[in-house]
């Protein structure tokens, strides 16, 4: 198999990877932007590590790991929310606790079961190039759900993040909105694990939004720019890794960091 840039697009695996990658990049970038504004970006890191525990459970029981990862992440996000609300722990400590519980659960299951180390490795560092059609369908369905929600309720979300009290007074059901947003966060994290892996999810979640925020744009343009950054980096990552057989996640993060440095320089020169 001799893959180069010109015949790349005719391969089925590459088409699947590109479609899945772009969808997830858009979802991640947008949800990441809201998380940054909520000052809860690190929740992404916590959830991705809990999802790792869920993946191990799925592999052990022979269930699609995306589904078990989704279950553990949603459980984790509710627990973090609960601890914060009841003042049991601050947001960052609550995230730290859930991260540790999730990841150690994964470790225990690996050491007990053994045998699926390679598969697990794929989830740790991502394996977009091996995405199956059924995974792609699941990813698309979940992404559509997240995107529709953001599309309809972006103003309400923004209003709630900006001033929760005033939003309540305006009749925005902030409690329900928070619960749905938490579930969407968990979904987003699990989706991106397939592409970029547990360890580096936080990068694709945070860096596109961070770059866009540096540019001092309107909210509308900030949303568009975030999507642009995440899509370009993911596409570049997938193409380069397919041609040169380098880890996709590594390239994606490298491109993102380059964007970040460029925006910083642009800010300085402005």
């Amino acid at each position: 198999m001799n893959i180069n840039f010109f015949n790349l697009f005719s391969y089925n695996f590459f088409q699947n990877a590109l479609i899945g990658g772009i969808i997830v990049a858009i979802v991640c970038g947008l949800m990441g932007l809201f998380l940054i504004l909520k000052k809860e970006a690190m929740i992404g890191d916590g959830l991705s590590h809990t999802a790792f525990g869920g993946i191990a459970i799925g592999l052990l029981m022979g269930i699609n790991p995306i589904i078990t990862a989704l279950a553990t992440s949603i459980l984790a996000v509710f627990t973090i929310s609960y601890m914060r609300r009841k003042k049991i722990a601050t947001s960052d400590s609550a995230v730290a606790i859930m991260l540790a519980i999730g990841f150690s659960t994964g470790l225990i299951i690996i050491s007990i079961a053994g045998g699926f180390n390679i598969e697990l490795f794929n989830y740790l560092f991502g394996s977009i190039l091996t995405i199956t059609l059924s995974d792609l369908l699941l990813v698309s369905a979940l992404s559509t759900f997240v995107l529709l929600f953001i599309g309809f309720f972006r103003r309400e979300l923004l209003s709630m993040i900006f001033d929760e009290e005033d939003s309540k007074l305006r009749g925005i059901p902030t409690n329900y909105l928070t619960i749905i947003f938490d579930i969407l966060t968990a979904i987003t994290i699990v989706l991106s694990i397939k592409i970029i892996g547990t360890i580096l999810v936080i990068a694709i979640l945070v860096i596109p939004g961070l770059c866009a925020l540096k540019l001092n744009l309107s909210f509308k343009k900030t949303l568009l720019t975030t999507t642009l950054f995440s899509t370009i980096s993911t596409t570049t990552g997938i193409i380069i890794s397919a041609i040169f057989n380098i880890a996709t996640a590594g390239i994606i993060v490298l491109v993102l960091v380059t964007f970040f440095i460029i925006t910083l320089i642009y800010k300085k020169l402005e």
Partner: protein
Amino acid sequence: MKNMITQNSPILEVNGLNVNRNGAPVIEGATFTINRGDYVGIVGPNGGGKTTLLRVILNFLPYTQGFIKLFDTNLTNFSSWEKIAYISQQATNFEEQFPLTVRELVSLGCIKKGRLGRNFTSEDWKNVDNNIEFMGLSNVANRRIGQLSGGQKQRMFVAKALTHKPELIILDEPIVGVDSNAQEKFYKKLSDLNIKHQTTILIVTHDLASVFCRMSKILCINKNVELANITPNLDTTQLLKRAYGEHFHFVFHQHSCEGEFPHEH
């Protein structure tokens, strides 16, 4: 005749209100009535309970005794919150980097209960632009909110509040770190609103001169609450001494309302 009735219809009634915070009384036996079209300055020493009283009225904090009626409805049953706009003490302390333009922020005031998740219509945007213009912010409408001056930020939040056409606006100490010129402009704008649209305004302020020049009533809060009509016969010295203590000294002359205001203290 009909006009007379609406003029004097009570918008806010507070009777025998007691509020405790962490076991200590903060408000004791507050009884007063605010009518439609009143422009009320809320004054009193720091820690005297101004913010607490407002937050109890807005149902953010509980009270121990008494009753509160908003628009003729008991607070516990009140649900027409769209009639009320509240600009909190912290409103202007937002994250400088928040990615919103003035126009976008003001438009968030168009979000309505029962019509969530809908797109804004051209009518909504017209409403937004009218209020931006009314508050004198047209020239900065497309700027990021973090780039505004303190006075502009205040006017922006009022513009946002106006988009849902409130009948009662409650502002908690909105002018901190704003120069006196901008402050005077802001009070003038609120006067316009009060006179032109009959909007009832409650505003916490430390600017006593502005209260006596522009407003129709003064609400003094220092655990006890006392409401007074601002008339030429009002004994301001005694009133303020009851709120701020015997050592408080404030001399007010009606003629100082013309043009420049003297610096207080």
